[in-house]
């Protein structure tokens, strides 16, 4: 208990010190929301183990540390550091952030369709954008969970994307969040607000990259709205330093016949927690949640997803896969709530886990709450090991045991990668994945 209040006190202190220089400090609505969120965070405190939502994930390592907000400066990050993480094709609209702040010198604007806004959140906050004011905190409730509250109080940057009605963005927006080698014991609070108007479409790629070995904390929130006929795809690739803590929330809200797809790839961080939520609030809306989490060593990766079927005849499909090696621990909690009026709901959730070591562990938990009677809701969760017969089969086709093992692991993961529609993004993820898997050098070419 004392530890919790100590950490709350610490974060309150951080906020009090930075309040005047956080983006939008001079904009009344921004300041007011930050304050309200900070008060809410102070009430809630960090989640405790007794909190059912945090049953398997201990925040002790975060409570123990006195995170500071990053100082201004270039933190030694140059274009050469960015190069390995960018896409050449198609020309993405790239916004780069280093240790919590937007870096125009590392970013690259693409030609955007008329009327599209894709600007750093810090600028939108400073301008006091009315559209932003309307949407910020509407989908990710600033008073909902401790980390969203903390993020709302301390958000320093991210993207504000606004796509007007009927506009389709060809090039993806690439958000590259980099933690420098100076990020140790720093707290980065990124907030992304993705607003598609009716019939608009956009693709956003969020990558989180750690350049050093620091024990930093990223607390990121992305909120998105896809009203009638809108189509929004978000790829999140998390490659934080293996000493880092990564806490992220994605909250989307959907209208009639809209499409949202969220692909959540978690490779890095000592502790990673993703809360992915989607509300289907009109007929014909569809959400796809795909996830892939890799853990090795002592990594801990926790994915909590929640799909709310609020209206009739909406559909959801969810496919999360985990690969755990070493002493890694995985958590998957997939909640699907079907409200009484949501007749004709069609929902499928699958979670498959591959354990590569005796000491790896995973806790899969599907959670269905169905209050309507005319629905089709299926779910499945499996934990397995590599198939001996398949290993033997590949050996009889000339591969060594190590090659066969890697190929099977890759195949397991690739089922999620294959669902990525943007070719360069898929290729990049494939390459990252191969890089991350044991004994896969041979497959990279």
């Amino acid at each position: 208990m004392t530890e919790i209040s100590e950490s709350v006190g610490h974060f309150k202190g951080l906020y009090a010190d930075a309040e005047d220089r956080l983006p939008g400090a001079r904009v009344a609505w921004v300041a007011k929301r930050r304050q309200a969120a900070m008060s809410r965070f102070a009430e809630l405190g960090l989640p405790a183990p007794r909190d059912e939502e945090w049953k398997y994930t201990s925040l002790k390592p975060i409570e123990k540390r006195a995170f500071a907000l990053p100082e201004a400066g270039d933190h030694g990050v140059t274009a050469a550091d960015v190069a390995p993480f960018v896409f050449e094709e198609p020309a993405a609209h790239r916004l780069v952030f280093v240790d919590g702040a937007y870096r125009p010198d590392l970013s690259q604007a693409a030609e955007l369709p008329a009327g599209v806004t894709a600007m750093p959140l810090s600028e939108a906050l400073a301008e006091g954008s009315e559209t932003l004011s309307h949407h910020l905190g509407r989908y990710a409730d600033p008073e909902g969970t401790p980390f969203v509250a903390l993020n709302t109080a301390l958000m320093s940057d991210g993207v504000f994307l606004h796509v007007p009605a009927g506009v389709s963005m060809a090039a993806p927006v690439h958000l590259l969040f980099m933690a420098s080698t100076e990020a140790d014991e720093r707290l980065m609070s990124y907030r992304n607000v993705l607003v598609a108007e009716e019939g608009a479409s956009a693709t956003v790629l969020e990558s989180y990259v750690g350049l050093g070995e620091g024990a930093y904390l990223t607390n990121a929130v992305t909120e998105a709205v896809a009203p009638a006929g809108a189509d929004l795809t978000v790829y999140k690739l998390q490659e934080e330093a293996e000493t880092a803590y990564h806490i992220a929330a994605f909250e989307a809200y959907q209208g009639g016949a809209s499409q949202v797809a969220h692909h959540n790839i978690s490779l890095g961080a000592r502790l990673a927690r993703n809360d992915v939520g989607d509300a289907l609030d009109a007929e014909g809306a569809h959400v796809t949640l795909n996830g892939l989490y890799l853990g090795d060593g002592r990594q801990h990766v926790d994915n909590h997803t929640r799909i709310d079927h609020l209206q009739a005849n909406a559909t959801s499909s969810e496919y999360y896969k985990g690969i755990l090696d070493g002493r890694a621990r995985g958590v998957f909690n997939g909640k699907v709530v079907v409200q009484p009026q949501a007749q004709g709901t069609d929902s499928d959730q699958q979670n498959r886990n591959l354990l590569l070591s005796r000491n790896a562990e995973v806790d899969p938990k599907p959670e269905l709450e169905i209050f309507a009677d005319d629905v089709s809701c299926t779910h499945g969760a499996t934990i397995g090991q590599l198939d001996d017969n398949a290993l033997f089969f590949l050996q009889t086709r000339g591969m060594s045991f190590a090659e066969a093992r890697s190929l099977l692991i890759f195949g397991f993961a690739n089922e999620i990668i294959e669902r990525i529609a943007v070719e360069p993004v898929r290729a990049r993820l494939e390459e990252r994945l191969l890089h991350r898997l044991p004994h896969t050098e041979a497959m990279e070419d």
Partner: protein
Amino acid sequence: MLSIKNLHASVEDSEILKGIDLEVGDGEVHAIMGPNGSGKSTLAGVLAGRDGYTIGEGSVTFDGQDLLAMEPQQRSCEGLFLAFQYPVEIPGVSNIYLLKSAVNAVRKYRGEEELDAMDLVSFIKEKMKLTNMDDKLLYRSVNEGFSGGEKKRNEMLQMAVLEPKLAILDETDSGLDIDALKIVADAVNRLRDANRSFILITHYQRLLDYIVPDQVHVLYNGQIAKSGDASLPQELEKTGYAWLTGADQAGAEAVQGQ
């Protein structure tokens, strides 16, 4: 090519192969028949190097080398191929990727230059003509959602691209309709030459209506109970395996199959 001498093998504590002697010469096709539980699949597994068997007495030499001392991938690279009774599905790994990896693994082992992507694809497509397989299946995950016939064609395609010295077909004919059976038979007949040998393991004689073997062996209770030429299956069709067990000749249909 292959010389099996007094081979004994057990699974856990139970002996399955109880002294097999078999000589397969270059370019010969041998059929091994026998009732369920006679040890046919164990023999295939032992030859290909599957885990879980304890080899007792006996030896197997393959082209003069000690086969049993080799890892499964080494046996494959040395030219031994096993077509699986139940082809394995590998979600997330495309068929073309598997074939490329297999071809290059073998080339690398043999000290040949690995083929680049373009050459590999044309090499594989050339071999596909042999099995009449739909191009689309190359880009699907290995055997995932394939019909029984497509899976067997895929095994035959793997055999064709690996160009083995000795191919063992472990009940490749089981569960196949007559058209698929002809495809398997056709692939074997077209790959059959003066140097390449085959061991066809089958419960039924119908595969042998399409592939004429040089020798036929009946395996029973872990031993070769009878050997003969291509006329042996016809004989078995009349008598069944009952003569082996000493029971009545009621089992004729067991050999004829469906």
